[in-house]
């Protein structure tokens, strides 16, 4: 049977998992919304960011929503690995591509659901983007690209980790990273050290690109490093996942 139909079988399996284990999706969808409510209502007035705080924070929170979905991907991949399910597939000659892309695509789709819910709540809170249809499409493109890149890296982490618990733990830095970027507070409002870190870490250009697109003023200066980071992360994740899949038994 071809790789393509195996991919569909695998994807169907991943969807069944999501449908039967809704707590993980619930977590991925709900947590970003809770964090948004917290920041907007508790700290919103404390930060002077020049625009409405909700307009400032939403793009960053979209990125946070991508990251929150990763924990469940890492755990799912790892339990396939440690429970011997991946070995079973390998012995049946199911391709690496089919097994792993199933997880990546499921992860990206979870991200999209979480972001749709988040943006919906943001609108209720007065989010007022000035993006054109094209800008929106660009924003969705950036999110899918990031979800894809982070998804591959997470799949690699999941394959590599010793247990589902460590896999979940290994994804925590990815979940924390947006807090140390310009997602919630502008980098120039941070203390020394942290500010430099926030300026140069991968999420900052990605968030600024999203922010630009949603404000209807995309900037190539942010978009190029953002794309480069995404491609780089995807490549590292993909290669790492590939070699771990082949080697580990």
């Amino acid at each position, binding site marked *: 049977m071809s790789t393509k139909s195996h991919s569909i079988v695998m994807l169907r399996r991943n969807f069944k*998992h999501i449908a039967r284990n809704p707590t993980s999706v619930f977590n991925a969808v709900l947590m970003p919304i809770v964090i948004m409510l917290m920041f907007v209502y508790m700290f919103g007035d404390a930060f002077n960011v020049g625009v409405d705080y909700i307009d400032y924070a939403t793009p960053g929170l979209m990125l946070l929503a991508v990251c929150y979905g990763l924990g469940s991907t890492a755990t799912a991949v790892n339990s396939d690995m440690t429970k*011997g*399910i991946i070995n*079973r597939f390998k*012995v*049946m000659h199911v391709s690496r591509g089919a097994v792993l892309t199933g997880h990546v695509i499921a992860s990206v789709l979870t991200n999209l659901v979480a972001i749709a819910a988040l943006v919906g709540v943001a609108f209720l809170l007065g989010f007022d983007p000035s993006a054109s249809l094209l800008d929106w499409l660009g924003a969705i493109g950036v999110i899918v690209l990031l979800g894809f890149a982070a998804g591959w890296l997470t799949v690699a982490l999941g394959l590599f980790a010793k247990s589902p618990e460590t896999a979940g733990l290994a994804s925590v830095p990815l979940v924390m990273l947006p807090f140390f970027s310009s997602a919630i507070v502008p980098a120039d409002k941070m203390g020394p050290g942290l500010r430099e870190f926030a300026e140069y870490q991968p999420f900052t250009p990605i968030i600024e690109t999203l922010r630009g697109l949603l404000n209807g003023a995309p900037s190539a200066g942010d978009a190029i490093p953002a794309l480069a980071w995404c491609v780089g992360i995807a490549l590292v994740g993909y290669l790492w996942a590939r070699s771990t899949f082949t080697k580990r038994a």
Partner: protein
Amino acid sequence: MTSSAIAVSGLRKAYKDKVVLDGIDLDVPAGTIFSLLGPNGAGKTTTVNVLTTLVKADAGTVRVAGHDVATQAKAVRAAIGVTGQFAAVDELLTGQENLRLMVDLSPVPARDGKRVVTELLERFDLVESAQKPVSTYSGGMRRKLDLAMTLVGNPRIIFLDEPTTGLDPRSRRTMWSIIRDLVADGVTIFLTTQYLEEADQLADRIAVLDQGRLVAQGTPDDLKRQIPGTHVRLRFTTVAELDAAARVLGDSTRDDEALALRIPSDGGTRSLRALLDRLDEYAISAEGLSVQTPDLDDVFLALTGRTTEVAAK
């Protein structure tokens, strides 16, 4: 050598500087059951992993179904079925969906899928729980489902890594009879186990693995000839009694530390009565009596001079 289902020579494997398999040679004729017997950490799973293309050997040649595992992995995979040491079932799917997944990933034509799934559910007595998620299954049911999943596509060579570890005696017997049925259909079985009894019950040939080396290989009878057979163990309360018993019973081995005497016996009532009569005759009484059949520990003690506990280190 066309009748060899599995032929291994000079197989070596090390993880970093820890040698796990240190030159394994074995040959399994098609249609037979071969059992690899060894304690924890002997290298059983590693052997299975190499033979099933999951792990690359450092040296040696391995041919399964006539194909080289290193260069013709795809052809090997098409011929084999593997049930790993821990049930590799999808907890979130139902039993039926797990089997369906295997059908969809195997070369079984889609139109036969339903029939194959139903037949396997019936054969493994899983019809009642077919619609329940596997997370609600007992250990024995999981093991059965695991094996049923392996059988999708009718593999001609099946690897079973400790298929009965953790099963209760009844489930163990069920598993044994399933394995015997498979061989009756002409399937070749490569089985690992920690239980001498299991190897004895099922296997045509047994190899004993110790720290990555085969320390014995042969039919169950060959092997049993090399190890102490069934024996009676008598325990005494004083050294004087032990001395007296050892004198009158002749062919026996004493264990001074435990104040015990080991007497070869077939364990039958007639020979036991004769033994008791003889003790009575000399007015010797033992504190306890037990009939012991040899286990893996005895095999190891006899073959390596060490017990399995030492071997595991």
